[in-house]
């Protein structure tokens, strides 16, 4: 398992696909972990909501710039759609939240498109407390 902090997150900007108002706790926790680590986050969700506490873009085309790293917090079907969008937009690395988000076929598809992939919850890398411990045992820190 690669050390995600040093070897994967080499840029200070990240695209957050799947920032959700239905799961505000998880989305905001991850958003905060990224920003506390000094990263600029571009959340994307095609659904609008008045319940967002941050600016959420509805499409990649609205972004002022597309970062080279993306994080996907979506189910498998929506993750596939997101990957199709990201392929042509200059994204070089994609972090999938967990195994259910990205099965082997999706990971292979990314690799064929020249996109480096990893599967891990970002809290293991940027979180504190028990998340840190989890990341240590998972070998991603």
């Amino acid at each position, binding site marked *: 398992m690669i050390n995600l902090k040093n070897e994967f997150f080499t840029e200070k900007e990240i695209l957050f696909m799947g920032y959700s108002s239905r799961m505000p706790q998880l989305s905001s*926790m991850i958003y905060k972990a990224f920003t506390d680590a000094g990263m600029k986050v571009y959340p994307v969700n095609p659904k609008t909501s*008045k319940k967002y*506490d941050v600016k959420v873009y509805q499409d990649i085309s609205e972004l002022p710039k597309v970062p080279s790293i993306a994080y996907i917090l979506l189910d498998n079907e929506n993750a596939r759609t997101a990957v199709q969008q990201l392929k042509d937009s200059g994204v070089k690395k994609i972090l999938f939240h967990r195994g259910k988000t990205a099965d082997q076929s999706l990971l292979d598809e990314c690799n064929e498109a020249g996109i480096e992939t990893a599967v891990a919850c970002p809290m293991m890398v940027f979180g504190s407390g028990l998340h840190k411990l989890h990341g240590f045992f998972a070998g991603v820190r």
Partner: protein
Amino acid sequence: MRTYPLIRYRWSNEHIMTALFIVILMYLFPLWLQKPSDILAFLVLLAVSLILDAAAGYIRHKRFVCSVSAAVTAAILQAITPGIPLWYKLIGIFAAIIVAKQIWGGTGKNSMNPAIVGYLVICFFNSGIYMPIEPSLFLIPGLVLSLPFIIFRPYMTLGYFIGMLLAYLSGDIVSWQILVVNSMFFGCIVMTDPVTITPQKFVGLIGGFLIGLLPMISVNPAIIFPMMLLIFNLVSYLIDDYFSIARRNLFYHPIKIKYPLKKINLTMPLIDLTLRDNNVDEKRADGLEYMNSLTPEMVLERIEANEVLGLGGEGFQTAEKIKTALTSNMDKKYLIVNAVECDPGLIHDKWLLRNRREDIYKGIKVISHCMDFSEIYLAVKNTEDISFPNDIKIHKVKNYYPTGYEKTLIKSVLKKKIPVDFIPAKLGILVLNVQTVLSIYEAVFLNKKADEKYITVANLKDNNAAVVKVKIGESIMKILESVYPGEYPVFTGGGIMNAHNVEEDDIVGKKTNFIAVSKMPRYKESPLCSNCNLCTTSCPQGLIVQRIAELIDKEKYEKVKKYRPEKCINCGLCSYVSLCGRNLSARVGEARGKVLL
């Protein structure tokens, strides 16, 4: 995008429940000294309680939620059923967690005290007299540490103490030690449950008194006491939820917020980012003689022509405000210069008061040139280094938030309460922010257009701040790059209590007072509201915040109107104090928007 305070209470429901659990363990300690094997039994009880609560919480919320309240229930049940076999207690804990709590909706939604329900179920299966806590010297730390929990339901506890004392004086309690120990345990621990006991003063006082007295004079206090408590729980539920008895009679307790910025040097140099052109009438007359050459009409014309706006946050047309006060038919008129700057993230008004004192004084004289004021006040929080001529009365306000809000300030300075729908200027009371007064001076003396403002630019990661002069319409990101380059994330708004994320194309507006680099505040939006009512008791407008937020979450926009969310002044205090980490001010703001549409 919603606004929110960038700072919050450090405490949460989980912290408080954990502290409560530890205090209850202190009551169990003497029992464990006598019979160490009870520790294992308690651990089993605790484990079952946590598993039941966590499982029910997972089924309801589709994720694990904190179950420390279940640990508290297990600990209370253990304390009031000493010597009872474990399997009876397991039945009791099942009844407590599932029947008394989860069926009603989980933590925060139950109408009856789960531990007391569990106790009654145990009594049903195993009749015996339990409940009184046996006195012991080892209980002293627990007794002392129980006291802070009174703040959740002080009237209920006070009533209970009085009832118990009366029972003792009439000989129904055998010893003062039993009186003290049981009053403290039940009065401070059990009866301060904010979920099941109403916060109403009078009802709580009477209810607590009756529950303290009547069981003690009855034949079987060990049964009568829990029955009465559960009946009171249901009464509380009806009062709070169905009869909509106004919670406005709850005691309002103002909040002091610790300043996040370390001691700032208020004589620091200004950072001036305005590129001023020289196309300005720089006619600086000597002192105030210049003003005497202008009529009040000319003064107002200049203020209007130079588009002076309220720079305290609301952005009203200042000329209109002055004219409204001028045409008021009140005999006495007052001017209050608001230099309170109660938002804990702002420093620019304080800086102006110490570095532009003479110009501010001239601004005050300009306004008093337009109309006769009975009194002129300068309202401040800190009078250190402030000196003005004797015609300006310096009024020191208390260091609470938000004392700088117009109507709160009027109440503090003039002791007059202005109703929500009234405009103070129509009553002859003119409240102007100190920066607005400065802007008036510049408009009249220098004929300068009011297109600049002083704002606070802060780096909350280092607890530093600067006073920056900017043009209205300037890019916020550009301003930040000039002061704290390369920092992220960036927030802006009226102050630290009312901020939002900055977008790339955001500009300085009329209401922008604050730009900051800060860590993203954590609003965990826990579904477990404990009904502590802190949001309501700290609201300076007396709004029933919790109910408004619930209705907004359920999208019941018509029902929310009767709670008058339009009174909200967007101070952000409810979000600041929310123990379950909810951004309540955003919800109330949404309700306000729906009503004002």
